[in-house]
């Protein structure tokens, strides 16, 4: 009985702690969730059109690298601000280019989509590692600098209820700030525009779309490229808004967590964003616990959990969510199936 009581008390304390720490937690959550959300949006657009893309990790990494390289190479000559801006643009373009490659492999060549994505990941590790060692490391110069995040005034931040939420979205760099906007725009676009309707048609029943005159191949190419632009933006965030430097393999599995967020969110932009926030929270927990230690017994317990467990938490969560959710949520019906136009001859 005593054990049950203690357990319940700890749960209560956990709840109180989270509530208290929430204002500090929220901006960190969005910050951590940004690359996940953008990656998940890439996945949503791709899979809604019927193309599976597990190469998001690789695309993020490549975009991160080339965005960084641009900022790094140019920030002496044209100043930090423009260099960073150009870096973001380059990162998005790299994403688009890699999207084109993936589209070609999956739509025209009709290769196995999982293998195509894996190849993208391996290529990204190889190319970025190679170029990093060749070009960046030897020069030993300073990084590209980091985009200064915005700040809101303390008085705004201290407003009850609204304050923390404002802080969450506005105490951030431009890319993180734009995530919510992008999510909303995509949600509207997917369900209320002509593009969105055709996208969904092509991902659910390409043959039906074909018979009313829609070019399935073109729609899929377009969407894969568009989606991968967001993956590129995620990469830009990692180096230009987040750390200001590049490490080999710095994406560290985010591309795959993004896929889990997409599945969790039932292939909708808002759902994927929610999933990204969830995973962001899991990661944030580890950070916050070490910075703001909870009181009493709960504090003792949470501090004694090794940091390794906090680090592993998002990955374990992904597995649990996949196992629990994927069977029950339905992907677009034609997801992962290459479309072959009926032979006319």
């Amino acid at each position: 009985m005593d054990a049950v009581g203690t357990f319940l008390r700890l749960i209560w304390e956990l709840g109180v702690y989270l509530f208290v720490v929430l204002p500090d937690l929220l901006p960190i959550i969005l910050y951590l969730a940004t690359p996940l959300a953008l990656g998940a949006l890439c996945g949503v657009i791709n899979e809604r059109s019927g193309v599976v893309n597990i190469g998001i990790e690789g695309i993020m990494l490549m975009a991160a690298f080339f965005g960084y390289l641009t900022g790094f190479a140019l920030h002496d000559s044209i100043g930090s601000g423009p260099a960073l801006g150009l870096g973001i643009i380059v990162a998005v373009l790299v994403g688009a280019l890699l999207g084109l490659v993936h589209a070609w492999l999956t739509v025209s060549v009709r290769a196995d989509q999982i293998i195509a994505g894996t190849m993208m990941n391996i290529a990204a590790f190889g190319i970025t590692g190679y170029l990093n060692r060749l070009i960046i490391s030897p020069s030993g110069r300073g990084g590209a600098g980091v985009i200064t995040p915005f700040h809101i005034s303390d008085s705004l931040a201290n407003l009850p209820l609204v304050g923390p939420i404002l802080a969450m979205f506005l105490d951030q760099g431009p890319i993180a700030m734009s995530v919510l906007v992008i999510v909303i725009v995509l949600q509207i676009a997917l369900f209320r525009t002509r593009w969105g309707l055709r996208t969904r048609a092509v991902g659910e029943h390409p043959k039906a779309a074909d018979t009313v005159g829609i070019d399935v191949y073109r729609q899929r190419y377009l969407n894969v490229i568009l989606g991968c632009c967001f993956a590129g933006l995620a990469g830009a965030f990692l180096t230009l808004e987040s750390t200001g430097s590049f490490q080999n393999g710095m994406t560290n599995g985010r591309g795959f967590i993004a896929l889990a967020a997409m599945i969790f969110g039932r292939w909708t932009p808002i759902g994927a964003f929610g999933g990204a926030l969830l995973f962001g929270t899991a990661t944030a927990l580890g950070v916050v616990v070490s910075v703001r230690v909870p009181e009493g017994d709960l504090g003792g317990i949470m501090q004694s959990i090794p940091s390794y467990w906090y680090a592993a938490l998002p990955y374990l969560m992904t597995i649990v969510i996949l196992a629990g959710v994927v069977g029950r949520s339905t992907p677009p019906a034609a997801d992962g199936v290459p479309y072959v136009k009926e032979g006319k001859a």
Partner: protein
Amino acid sequence: MSWARRTFRQAWRVASIPLLATLLAFIVAAGVVILSSAFTSTGFDLFLPLAAYASLLVGAFGSGNGMVNTLVAAAPLVLGGLAVGIGFKAGLFNIGVPGQFLVGAFAAAVVGSALASAPTVIAAPLAMLAGAAGGAAFGFIPGFLKARTGAHEVVTTIMLNNAAFYLLGWVLTDFARAPGFSFSRTGEIGNSALPVLVGRNLHIGIPLAFLTVFAVRWLLDRTTIGFEIRTVGQNPSAARYAGMRPVFVTTLTMTLSGLLGGLAGAVQTLGVIGFYAAGVAGTVGFDSIAVALLGRSDPIGILFAAILFGAFRAGAPLMQIETSVPIEVIDIIQALVILFLAADLLVRRVFRIRAATPVIPDLATVTQTWAGGGSAGSTAP
């Protein structure tokens, strides 16, 4: 037609695409090397790839030491490649070899250091067994989840890769850390180390890996279990009609796959490195995928592919020292090889090979996505 010519024709038919894909990958990578040399301090160099490939070859085969290093590097690749390959046979994509490798390496290191003073003949096999068991457990989890819940093994295995890294780090730091070293690592394995057969480092793991190739081949071709694995991979509906149980087969295959991955880690730990620490995995995990694809999931093919990649990895350091071309160029070549295997129509067009008729895809239907939509790999004309 003479026997020799017939064998050659058959070998060519099987090996032509992989060999040509590799050749094409080297050519394209050479382009990358040339282009990127423009950004280095030494400047644009048109002949850099030639120098690089030359010292790669020398590093791998140019000396007795080199050849031994090639074999030593190949041993875990053989096992890792078999791990991925056996998964492909059942229509599963095991990208979890890095994680299974780590778990196997850790288990072998811990058991190994515990038995450091026991006779080698007991210590080494037990440590290997521990590695295999650890890997098997790590393969069982995604296998079971896929079979029962449909959770796609690509994502679950990758997540386990990352989780393994952290969790093993925890176990190492809090429980298994050996005193007296400046970094976190397990203790000396003493007698648990794999005995060296020839020279400085040709350890017994190499013939062991070799034997495993034949063991897996035997399993797949000559046993009913292997038959079930292959049938579930080729045609699940017919497998059901024949009375096979896809759930069981999926779980079993992933467990076996993990076992092989764990064995790879054990071999590398007990034969080469001698302890477990963070970062010990190296490149074996992802190399295994390329090895399996290059070897077309066939054990013998995997053996040759593993030796090829072992040569790359063994020769790369010399290449980097002599020509400053970074060792990551091997990763680029690897990706290109996979690209050309997946888009093999490209390779055919470049080298003007007609597709053999009838084309019964053997790289096809490799994987399924979460919607259950499989896609045919090679493109039939």
